[in-house]
């Protein structure tokens, strides 16, 4: 069991590895249908979240729609 050090939405996070992006969302309690995921500045589409592995030092952005004009 290793631990991955990630940066998620600008903050350091640790996640038990090996892990995929889908594992990260589950760990954070997020429904994959409600967020868009960027891994190291590249968008990862929903169907690929479960097959995209995370590596030490990865930067992840999790975004959604909020109120705006």
């Amino acid at each position: 069991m290793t631990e991955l050090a990630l940066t998620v939405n600008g903050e350091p996070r640790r996640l038990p590895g090996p892990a995929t992006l889908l594992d990260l969302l589950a760990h954070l309690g997020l429904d994959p249908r409600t967020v868009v995921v960027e891994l190291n500045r590249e968008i990862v589409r929903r169907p690929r979240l479960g097959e995209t592995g995370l590596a030490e030092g990865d930067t992840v952005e999790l975004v959604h729609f909020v109120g705006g004009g």
Partner: protein
Amino acid sequence: MTTIVPETVTDAPLAIGGRSFRSRLMVGTGKYRTNEAMVRAIEASGAEIVTVAVRRVDLDRTKEEGVLYHLSPDQYFLLANTAGCYTADEAVRYARLGREAGFNNFVKLEVIGDRETLLPDTEGLLAAARTLVGEGFQVLAYTNDDLITALRLEDAGCAAVMPLASPIGSGLGLVDPYGIRTIKRRLTVPVIVDAGVGTASDACLTMEQGVDGILMNTALAEAKDPAAMARAMGLAVEAGRLAFLAGRMPRREIAVPSSPTSGMLE
């Protein structure tokens, strides 16, 4: 309530990027005091196109609610914006995220050039517009009331050009009717006035210039009663559009009597 439209005046639906819309009023979802007030106002406005922003999910709140918890994408056409972006690269990144989160390939493109006035960086705006059009986006570009920039945005392939009435969130109303009329006269793509409208008369006056629609947010969100203001805005947009189509009388600087001048008593 019935809407009476005279048979002599016909209006085509608003067509943008291959889609057609009944309402010429578009509304934002920001700055409402509560989500309930936002939903009621949007319903009362009659708008179909509703703008949203792309932001990080707040990981520390247990019940961070995105706007989709309150607005059904089946009921409204969600238009993602790139608000808060100060460079073309940043705006392109946000547009791509918005397309991925969203339900269409439309984007309301903003590249802001100045924090105090929130006026657009037209150079960055054009660069981002060209990139996004190349990637298949339908770009609705927020710009100033400068004709040359508007023409270049149209040349770049934007689906609509969105000049401001006055700065974002200012509520100053339509500052330059001449500039807006000129842009409308010279462009082929729809011209949607975005930002600055404060109250119903501003919306009506703006539509009377012949533009294709208006996008507003703060005028509703900061009204004492957002739903009532939304209804007023919906009526004003319709009234202004109808007045434009009806064709106003000429302005004269002398009086002309409305009653017959003949048949007066001796």
